[in-house]
């Protein structure tokens, strides 16, 4: 029996920070706002660490806080749940989250709405931690929708920027489409298991045998995956994430790379008991993940906006995580989730540092040669690039290798696509690195007046300049984590840590000698491909920089399709948005509402009026006369009723 851990403090601390800054921040100094904005998530991190030490032997741990909803026999409470899975998430979210808060002090310092930024950021932490720590699906859903809100607010943070507002709205609505599936899944769970508590639901699912054809668990699994597709930007709902880059860069790092977008992976892993008994649903997860990984990576090759490259890369890496879940290797998915939080958080923060350095410019074609101007940024971003490309011994290598090996054991096609994607990943990441830091600087030397085209991010000094230490510090810490963070996976250490949650699954069987050598062979192949990507990028963007344009010209239409993201946004607009808006306007509103319903009633009323010529003064429009008529009518009714009463009374 573990002593009371007061888990509730962890989400509530940042909420307190958000509340204080939300109400008082506007009139406070930046220093005060930063103090509040850092103290509370920092305290949450500290408390999380304390909890880890105190709870280590007492997992899983449950904590009841208060009633929330009680309706008949259905209950959902404010209650918390901590096991190895939520523990990993807890440390990642509070740890990386806190680092990004620190970075934001430097990055957002000159923004006029500084306090608003920290209010939203702390609010996000509250919801994200609720999502992770809830002991039932409805608590998770609080967090789930709440992080969506925080994302909406932060994408549209620069309120005068139309594109940002549209992106925020798009993110929210596309997520709602996913939530629709999630909700139906929850209804099914309530319907059949009478509860949304993880322990109660899973205890009932546990004895069920895997479904050989599509049944209840399969349906639930697929519906949950619809929700995950929204939040974690998978096909077909990934379209909001690239647009979400309109938000300030720390937001992209925290919400749209390291934490929120991984919520879908967490949710699927949390529901592994259901998925493991629904092989068809698992296959759906694997296919969606694999296709998304490849698809998004190909778009990443052609993007020239530094943040857009990273956005598509995030979509692609999330695809890897779902691939892992889909082949039943949940712990590998969570492993990659963790390392990805390190290196992708770092990539975004470093990109922010680059953007900061060049006065708000995000177009990589206008960068180049920056490594001499901003060496620390270059160094840390280089490490992150090595990590994401799967080059040993950096963090991404271990987790990606784990996923690919598990995928191979399930179906070699997943593995093959995974390796191809790894190659593309390495290529576009080194392309980014080379375009930004190598060659000559192509940017204008922005003066004090001219901000870059993306205005808000910019500062506009002369030469590209290195960021202050408040920003570089978090980069360095994340760089260390991106370097060493994968080592916990040696000898399946990370996996074994999660064994109490997921059971000793697929990977355990693989430690036999023969498959061991197979594992090493496959590892060799993927590392080789990662290096090939690096070399190709070097050739195209450093040694023969005139080549990419030639290749693009040669590819013609196909290249254009990829640059334009396969026209998926345009397709959605044409197939869904426009018909919906036009149809609602012309058919529903102008048609049914105005013509059919209202006109027929007005016609009936007109007809009635024509018949009753004597009472034409009713149309005088004089309200007093209407009131008079009403009073007269009411009097008649009452008189009638009294007469009726008298009559009945007499009848008795």
């Amino acid at each position, binding site marked *: 029996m573990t002593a009371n851990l007061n888990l509730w403090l962890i989400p509530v601390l940042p909420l307190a920070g958000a509340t204080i800054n939300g109400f008082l921040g506007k009139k406070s100094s930046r220093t005060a706002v930063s103090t509040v904005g850092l103290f509370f998530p920092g305290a949450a991190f500290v408390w999380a660490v304390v909890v880890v030490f105190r709870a280590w032997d007492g997992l899983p741990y449950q904590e009841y806080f208060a009633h929330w*909803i009680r309706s008949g026999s259905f209950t959902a409470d404010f209650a918390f749940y901590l096991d190895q899975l939520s523990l990993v998430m807890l440390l990642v979210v509070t740890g990386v989250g806190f680092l990004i808060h620190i970075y934001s002090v430097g990055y957002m310092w000159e923004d006029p709405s500084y306090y608003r930024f920290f209010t939203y950021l702390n609010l996000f932490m509250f919801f994200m931690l609720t999502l992770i720590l809830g002991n039932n699906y409805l608590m998770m859903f609080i967090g789930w*929708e709440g992080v969506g809100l925080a994302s*909406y607010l932060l994408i549209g943070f620069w309120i005068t920027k139309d594109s940002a507002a549209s992106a925020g*709205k798009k993110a*929210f609505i596309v997520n709602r489409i996913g939530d629709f599936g999630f909700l139906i899944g929850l*209804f099914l769970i309530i319907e059949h298991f009478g509860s949304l508590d993880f322990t109660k639901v899973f205890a009932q699912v546990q004895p069920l045998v895997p479904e050989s054809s599509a049944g209840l668990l399969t349906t639930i699994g697929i519906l949950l995956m619809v929700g995950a597709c929204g939040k974690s930007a998978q096909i077909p709902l990934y379209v909001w994430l690239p647009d979400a880059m309109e938000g300030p860069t720390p937001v992209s790092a925290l919400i749209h790379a390291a934490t929120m977008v991984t919520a879908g992976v967490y949710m699927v892993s949390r529901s592994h008991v259901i998925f493991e008994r629904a092989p068809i649903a698992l296959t759906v997860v694997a296919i969606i993940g694999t296709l998304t990984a490849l698809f998004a990576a190909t778009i990443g090759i052609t993007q020239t906006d530094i943040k857009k490259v990273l956005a598509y890369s995030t979509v692609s890496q999330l695809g890897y995580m779902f691939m892992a879940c889909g082949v039943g290797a949940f712990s590998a998915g969570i492993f990659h989730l963790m390392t990805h939080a390190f290196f992708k958080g770092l990539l975004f923060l470093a990109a922010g540092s680059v953007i900061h350095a060049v006065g708000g410019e995000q177009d990589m074609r206008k960068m180049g040669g920056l490594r001499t101007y901003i060496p620390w940024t270059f160094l840390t971003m280089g490490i992150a690039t090595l990590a994401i490309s799967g080059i040993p011994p950096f963090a991404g290598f271990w987790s990606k290798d784990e996923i690919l090996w598990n995928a191979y054991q399930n179906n070699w096609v997943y593995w093959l696509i995974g390796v191809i994607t790894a190659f593309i990943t390495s290529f576009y990441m080194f392309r980014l690195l080379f375009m930004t830091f190598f060659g000559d600087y192509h940017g204008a030397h922005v003066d004090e007046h001219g901000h870059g085209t993306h205005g808000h991010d910019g500062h506009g000094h002369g030469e590209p300049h290195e960021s202050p230490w408040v920003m570089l510090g978090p980069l360095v810490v994340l760089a260390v984590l991106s370097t060493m963070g994968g080592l916990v996976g040696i000898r399946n250490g990370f996996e074994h840590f999660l064994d109490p949650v997921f059971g000793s699954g697929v990977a355990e069987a693989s430690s036999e000698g023969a498959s061991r050598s197979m594992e090493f062979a496959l590892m060799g192949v993927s590392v080789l491909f990662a290096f090939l990507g690096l070399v190709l990028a070097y050739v195209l963007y450093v040694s023969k920089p005139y080549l990419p344009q030639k290749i693009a010209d040669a590819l013609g239409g196909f290249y254009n399709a990829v640059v334009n993201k396969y026209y998926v946004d345009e397709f959605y607009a044409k197939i869904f948005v426009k018909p919906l808006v036009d149809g*609602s306007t012309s058919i529903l509103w102008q048609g049914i509402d105005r013509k059919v*319903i209202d006109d027929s009633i007005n016609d009936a009323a007109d007809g009635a009026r024509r018949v009753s010529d004597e009472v034409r003064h009713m149309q005088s429009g004089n309200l007093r006369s209407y009131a008079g008529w*009403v009073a007269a009518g009411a009097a008649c009714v009452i008189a009638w*009723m009294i007469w009726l009463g008298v009559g009945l009374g007499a009848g008795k």
Partner: protein
Amino acid sequence: MNGAMNIDNLSPYILTLVTFAPLVGALLLTVLPRRDREIRIISLIFSLLTFFLSLHLPVHFHRSLSGFQYEINEAWISSPNIHYHMGVDGISMWLVVLTTFLTPLCVLISWKSIHDRVKEFFILLLILETALIGVFTSLDLFLFYFFWEATLIPMALLIGVFGHERKVYAAVKFFMYTMIASTFMLAAILWLYAHTGTFDFVVIRDQIARGTVPNFPAAAQWLFLGFFIAFAVKVPLFPFHTWLPDAHVEAPTAGSVLLAGVLLKMGTYGMLRFNLGLFPEQARSNAPWIMTLALIGIIYGALVAMVQPNMKKLIAYSSVSHLGFVVLGIFSFTQLGLNGAMFVMLAHGVSTGGLFMLAGILHERRHTYEIREFGGLASITPVYATSYLFIVLASVGLPLMNGFIGEFLVLSGAFHARPIYGILGATGVIWSACYLLWMYQRVFYGKVTNPINNSMGDMLGVEKAAVWPCAAMALVMGVAPILWLGAIDPAVHATLNPIAQMLSKVVGQ
């Protein structure tokens, strides 16, 4: 102990006090000189007094009991046999409190916006409050019908005298629609009186349940429909909804707040109390088409809301959508669904009331509700923008806000009744995000497109005092719905009980 005794002694009179306190205020206003400031203050005092009196109800309510409480039942007129019978259960009690909560806010939001005929305005507002409370507290059908019709006159006058450009058209449309529909209910009530000799709801309900009403089986379907049509128009259920947008657009802000916040709930309350209470069998057999209309209302209302160029019409159509959830929940015949329906009623009253006040604040400054007239307001009026967003989020159904609780319960109940109902209804979570966030973006985000708006002032103190209680309530209801559900749950259980018994009889046969 002694104090508790005293309060208990108050219980038989509390409903009378709550119901007629506003009327006393209105009568007082009639004899006062036309000094606008005093009139406003007295209205506020009386509406606040009513609110605090009404808090007696939930505070001393016995949550474990399911029947009517605070009952008073006195013979009033012997022939026809009309009783002054009042009482509330966990359902009507909260609707009373909703009414008394919103009315002082209506007084505040009208503080500056009503300049002409101030005295008449506040008299009408207070009379309306009495009538609304009376609808929810009456347990005698005659009394109920009296209050029901009594709401029409002050509301029609509020629209017709204090409204905007096409006010008379809207007032007449509102009046005619609901008046004509009510006559069907009147006919049904008179039939029941003729066959039972009483207007007493409880007595009639028990007689019907025991099967002692002559000719009831033959007439039941017509009686059900008689009540239902009156309620469906009031809700309004698709396709009876077209009076609503016109009424809202023309109504003064306070009128809209009470219209959407409370008046529409008279319809859904009526369904819950009378259609389910008196005619459980017919309610059951008619449920499929009613739920279908409710679903159409949810989706149709939302889609039409989405394309409205006028902010107030948008909110009006969103009410059609939200009230569709209520009807869906009621006719799902599930504990979850009815609890949810009840919660949506309250939540919608608070958040849509708030939205109408916010729209009114805009109109006060620019004399238009056209969305395209605005844009970029977030940078001019940040407090207003934040308050607006808060209420929008409640309305969109963000968890921990009031909209979510009700919708979630309704949909899970509807899903239990038939999965497709829950699935189609759940698309509402997408639509509400579409129409509200799109509108919000066009009004608040971006650069200021219309230079006139640059001189717009942010919220005044009195406006904050009107809107912020709604915002706070939306949050409290979302975080601690248990405070409301505790009383709702047993009342809903009691409502469903005869239906459950009926079903088990059917199954038994």
